[in-house]
Structure formats: structure tokens, C-alpha cells
């Protein structure tokens, strides 16, 4: 089970949270004008990287607020959590 650092409540176990999938996907401002391929891309296509993944989490059994997290999908290690609306933080320098 993951331990997530909620920016508002601090470190809590994963069962208090819901994962909301990939972060930083912006809804196209004019859906009617972009065509089916771009709309399909927005709805269905995800990065699912083998490596660092930016994703949304909801502290559903806590403060009920959304935040973003960077997590390594190989080790499941949480690298950083950050509030909604802030840009994706730079990765820390690789340690020894």
C-alpha cells in the first residue's frame, strides 16, 4: 500500500485516496472545432509511462481535495505531491 503525502493533511495510507489518472490533461477549449481525432486523443489516449508518471489523486476519505503526484511506475515510489493548479515540479537530481 502506498503512503501519500496529501498537501493539506500530510502523510496518509492509500486506502484514504482515489487515483484520478493522468494529470495535466487540459480539456480542449472549443471541442466542436478540433475534429474527432483530437477529441478522441483527449478522451481516451493516455501516456502510461514506464517511469515517472504525473497523476491526480483525491483524498476522498479525508479533506476531499484533489492534488497531483509524481510517481515512478517501476518502483511505485512517490517522488512529489503538489497542489492542483501548480506546474509539474522538476525531478530531483538522481541520488547515489
Amino acid at each position, binding site marked *: *500500500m*502506498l503512503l501519500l503525502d496529501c498537501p493539506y493533511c500530510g502523510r496518509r495510507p*492509500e*486506502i484514504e485516496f*482515489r*487515483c484520478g*489518472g*493522468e494529470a495535466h490533461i487540459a480539456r480542449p477549449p472549443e471541442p466542436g472545432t478540433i475534429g*474527432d*481525432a483530437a477529441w*478522441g*486523443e483527449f*478522451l*481516451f*489516449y*493516455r*501516456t*502510461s*509511462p*514506464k517511469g515517472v*508518471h504525473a*497523476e491526480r489523486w483525491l483524498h476522498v476519505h479525508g479533506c476531499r481535495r484533489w492534488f497531483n503526484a509524481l*510517481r515512478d*511506475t*517501476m*518502483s*511505485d515510489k512517490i517522488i512529489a505531491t503538489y497542489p492542483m493548479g501548480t506546474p509539474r515540479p522538476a525531478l530531483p537530481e538522481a541520488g547515489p
Partner: protein
Amino acid sequence: MRRFSLGTLLSEAFKGHQGWERQWRSPEPKPAYDVVIVGGGGHGLATAYYLAKEHGLANVAVLEKAWIGGGNTGRNTTIIRSNYLQEESAAIYEHAVKLWEGLSRELNYNVMFSQRGVMMLAHNTHDVQSLRRHVYANRLVGIDNEWLTPDEAKRFCPALNTSPDIRYPVVGAALQRRGGVARHDAVAWGYARAADALGVDIIENCEVVGFQRDAGGAVAGVETSKGEIAATRVGVVAAGHTNVVMARAGLRMPLESFPLQALVSEPIKPVFPCVVMSNTVHAYISQSDKGELVIGAGTDQYVSYSQRGGLHIATHTLEAICELFPQFSRLRMLRNWGGIVDVTPDRSPIIGRTPIEGLFVNCGWGTGGFKATPGSGHVFAHTIATGEPHAINAPFTLDRFRTGRLIDEAAAAAVAH
């Protein structure tokens, strides 16, 4: 290939079983093939077999980055059924069940397919309505599925707790008698042996790291950890790593990869005659011929390639198992593992062409691909050999995520399936 028969078994028995040969070769890759299959799981090996058997394409290589059948083929809970709601899904899974029914004879390899029945439990009004709808839909397209009362369910599976006092009492069940289980390793080995005998090269420890394209953009070959291999037709069948492989061809996919867990108990005497599934309390269970109870748990909620899941996911399933089968609460669990499953937005697979000429993909089987192995390989081989999809996989295009013509088993099953 030396055929297995009672005669060969008897003659080997008198010679101390010293004469059995390797079941498939371990060749070095040739510089070029007609078709390269990326991924040596059940689906990839089945594809190679049917390419050679039905389409006369024997100059085929299966490239596997580790060992064959070591991924999801060897990690699933081996359940086989075809009682899907949507007609497109029912057609492809039923195609697979019909191939399963003759597979041991076809491959001359005992895949231990056992049609012991798959029973899906209903615990509330929604389950009853949903499962009865499945029963009616299946019967309309000629797939067996029947509705059982709790007493009938108890008679079919005596271990089941049908007491009205449990948290989620059993109020009915849908039973597909032709469903069952098979030995998953034997499926990979059987297909590998049969494909190898037809001339297919199975190359293990060979990871595809890139794709070569010709001047027109079509596929010209693959770059691997064992060098370059030319091929004008490449089929990617890489399950949870499809995203990773396709990214090497510069393509994004409508897939997310999640860990899915399973576990087995210590072996006990035969106590469990069928397969029981419950989507509501999320548990599925059967007993292997070795005696272990084989239990399937859910996926984690986040994308991961770690091949292990959270303990609370397995715990949740075991709590459900112990409520439905209180006698199993005394059993110890022997092993727990995870596999990485590639899940599409509509929970239906993608089998067909890609935007790159000559590059084909068979992926998105999510949490339920094992049951489809023969059917999936059969129609994918047709697609690669002819360049056009088989009627059965024609609806399962990548393009449906642009057109919106989804095959929505996600809504139909309401859970991973």
C-alpha cells in the same frame, strides 16, 4: 516433432523416460522473416501457430524479451468463459471457447481444458437484473448461460455459503456450463511446440528496442537486443508493455497498464468442483488439479509496471472469499503475484491495423485475456496474413477511439473482467 501418444508414452516408460527430446528449438534469429511477432505469450505464440498452420506463412519469428509464457500467460487464474454481454465480445470469446474445445487434439498437447462450469454470483437486485440480461443476451446469440436459484447454486457448488445472514447473501447465479479452466503454461508450451514444428522460430531473451521504416513510412524491420531483423509485417502482442513497445514506433495508444494480482492457497484435496466469480464482492476462485485454490484479486487503482500489487487489494478479495466459503478461512496462502494488464477505455481489446503500414497490434485484453488466447491468435493471424481483419475482430479496431464506436464492456460488466 515427435507426436505424443499412448505408444510413445509406453515405449518411453520402458526406456526410463530418457528419450524425450526438447519440445521446441532455440534458434538464433535469421536476418529476415516474412512476419515478426513481438511478444511470446499465449496470444503471440497462437498467432504464429495459426499463421503457419492456416495461412502457410512459416517464415515467422516470435521475439520474446524474457521467456515464453513468463508474463501474463503464466500469471492469470486460467478462467475460460464466453458469457459477455455485447455481441462483438460474445462472438470473439465464443470463437475462442470453440477452439479451446478441440485444442488439446489440435496441438497434440494436453492443455487440461476442463469445462467444469463458471458460476457468477448475484448479491443484490442490480446483479440479478444485470446477470439475467447477460443470460438472455447470450442465449439469443447461441451461447449457453442459465439462471440458478440460490438452492441450485448450492447444489452445483456445495462449498458455497448461501446463508441469508452473510453481509452479501447469494440471491442467484448465472452459470455457463461450457466455461472452465485450462493449464496456462501448457497453452504456451503447446502452441510453441506446434508452431516450432511448422518452422516458426521462437527466440527468447530478445527484446525489441526499435522499429525500422522504409521511405514510405511502412515497417521494414525491428531492432532487437540480438541485432536487426527485417520484416515487412510486424505484429505487436505485448500485453501490459504494449504502450512501451508502441512508443518505440512513435505511436501513442489508448491504454493504461495496471498491476493485477492473483494468489494460490496450499494444496488440499478436491473440494471445489467449478469456478465461482462474484463481481460485487470481487472474488473469483477455482481449484487447480494440483489442489491449490486459485484466487483472483483486483487491479490497483494506479498505473504501474511493478508486477506486484497492494496487499490491501488481495486482503479485500480474501475477506470476500472467506465470507462466501467460511471453511477456507483456515487455509494458508502459498504465493501471491502480479501481472501488468493493458486496459482500454471500453474494456474491449484492440486487434488490427495501426496507422503505420505493416504494423499490427493485438492488445487491450485487460484483466481477461487468457480465455481468448486461441481465438485471439486465430483472428490476428488472419489479419496479418491477409492485411484485412477477420469478421470477428473487425469491430475491435484502434480507430473506434476516434469514431466513438466503442464496445463498452466496461459499462456492461461494471468492473474489470
